[in-house]
């Protein structure tokens, strides 16, 4: 089977500022890919390019023909001036029946909020509601931008478990943006770490030991790492690699920039 999404040498600029450069990635059927990186690393921009909401300045994004994507955006604030029950929110995405909406809400374990106003549901319920709307697309690929945002730690673990089980029951792939590698580690097939450019990619254990990952996430990351390489470059405040300041590198780390 061919890849669902193929990103080749993608670059995106906002004015003179380079948000993303030389990003390559693929998403294979049935795979759970976690996209991690610090704030401002361009994670949401990359997601928007994959969804086709923005055109890259260079490189390409190819989606397999007819690919159905369920998208869960980040930080959705619904105007309190808009009276909107949860079931109506679910039906906004397309032509779906009441029964389908109810089933989707049951699947995410939030059937209680069916008639509740969107402005009154809790953080965790809100994220489940978004997930239900994404499921209504009958997705082959779920794209989740920070799905556990505004959810307490216990709820975060539950949500990640839910996402994992939905992936299995629907047989879909998942591309998930996350801040925290720890929580997603067990369920993730592949981690892609970006900071404007592609820092490292691979199995979660490998990434957690990768010097560029350690450099990005610092102390916190080192707690889970088994050993530590020296990083072979520095990042500027905008995430660009400052090659001129590269310190003595461990050439075995396999992390080079062209």
């Amino acid at each position, binding site marked *: 089977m061919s890849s669902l999404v193929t990103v080749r040498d993608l670059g995106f600029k906002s004015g003179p500022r380079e948000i993303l450069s030389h990003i390559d990635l693929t998403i294979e059927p049935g795979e759970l890919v976690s996209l991690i990186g610090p704030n401002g690393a361009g994670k949401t921009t990359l997601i*928007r390019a994959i*969804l*086709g*909401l923005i055109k890259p300045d260079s490189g390409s994004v190819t989606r397999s023909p007819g690919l159905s*994507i369920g*998208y869960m*955006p980040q930080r*959705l604030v*619904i*105007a*309190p*001036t*808009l*009276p*909107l*029950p949860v079931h*109506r*929110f679910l039906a*906004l*995405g*397309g032509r779906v029946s009441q029964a389908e909406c109810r089933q989707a809400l049951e699947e995410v374990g939030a059937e209680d909020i069916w008639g*509740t*106003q969107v*402005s*009154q549901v809790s953080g965790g319920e809100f994220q489940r509601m978004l997930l239900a*709307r994404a499921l209504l*697309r009958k997705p082959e690929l779920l*794209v989740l931008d920070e799905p556990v945002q505004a959810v307490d730690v216990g709820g975060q673990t539950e949500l990640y478990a839910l996402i994992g089980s939905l992936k299995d029951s629907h047989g879909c792939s998942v591309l998930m943006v996350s801040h925290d590698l720890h929580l997603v580690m067990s369920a993730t097939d592949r981690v892609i770490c970006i900071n404007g450019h592609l820092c490292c990619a691979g199995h979660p254990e490998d990434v957690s030991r990768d010097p560029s990952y350690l450099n990005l996430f610092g102390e916190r990351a080192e707690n889970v790492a088994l050993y530590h390489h020296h990083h072979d470059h520095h990042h500027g405040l905008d995430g660009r690699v400052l090659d001129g300041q590269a310190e003595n590198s461990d050439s075995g780390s396999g992390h080079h920039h062209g």
Partner: protein
Amino acid sequence: MDEFLIRAVAAGIGVAVVAGPLGAFVVWRRMAFFGDTLAHSALLGIAIGLLAGFNLTIGVFAACIGVALALAGIRGRGAIAGDTMLGIISHGTLALGLVAVAFAGSAGLNLLAYLFGDILAVTAIDLIWIYGVGAIALAGLAIIWRPLLAITVHEDLAAAEGAPVKTINLTFMLVMALVVAAAMKVVGILLVAALLIIPAAAARQFARTPEQMAVIAALIGGLSVVAGLGGSLSLDTPAGPSIVVAALFGFILSLLAPNFGASKQR
């Protein structure tokens, strides 16, 4: 009842019925200032109509649609913030319109009638305009209702789900231009935006779905027209502003009403 009064009530209710649902979207999308800008541009349309010598109603529609298209084109572009740009176009077209009307030097033109409306002078032809345009606007709004609501909630999510965001937004702006041009007859250029937002804001308290809010806004708007015209006749006050004052009372009453909808904030 006098014939002019029947026409006035019919015109006012015709406008209120369309302004309700449209005003709900204006409130949800925070476009009150945008409505004001469209209305102000109408005076420029009148001036151009006077100078070029064609039908003033057509001039108003043309100016509103032109400004709506221009605003759609410059939306979110450049170094000038959106509200600044709206302010420039809003007051720029109003001032330009006032100057141009004076320049046209038409002695028979009653400027106040355009600024504050002249609902008691509505003619049978005006009524046909209002109801024709109102029907088109309502039909247009009904057709784009679901995707427009989806875009209002979250533009990226709607776009990712395949909603034609640009087409829908443009259609919405054109519908708004039509309604503003029609509503101008009733409450005038300076108070058109009030007829859009006040009934819709008053309806929020009583609504649990978007459609309820749209219908209740139309009802409150219609009641405001009747109450305003009644007050205007008995107290001998200007009709357009009296209608807006009635709507304002409606809004204040809605704040005192028990909370039907779930507008409570956590």
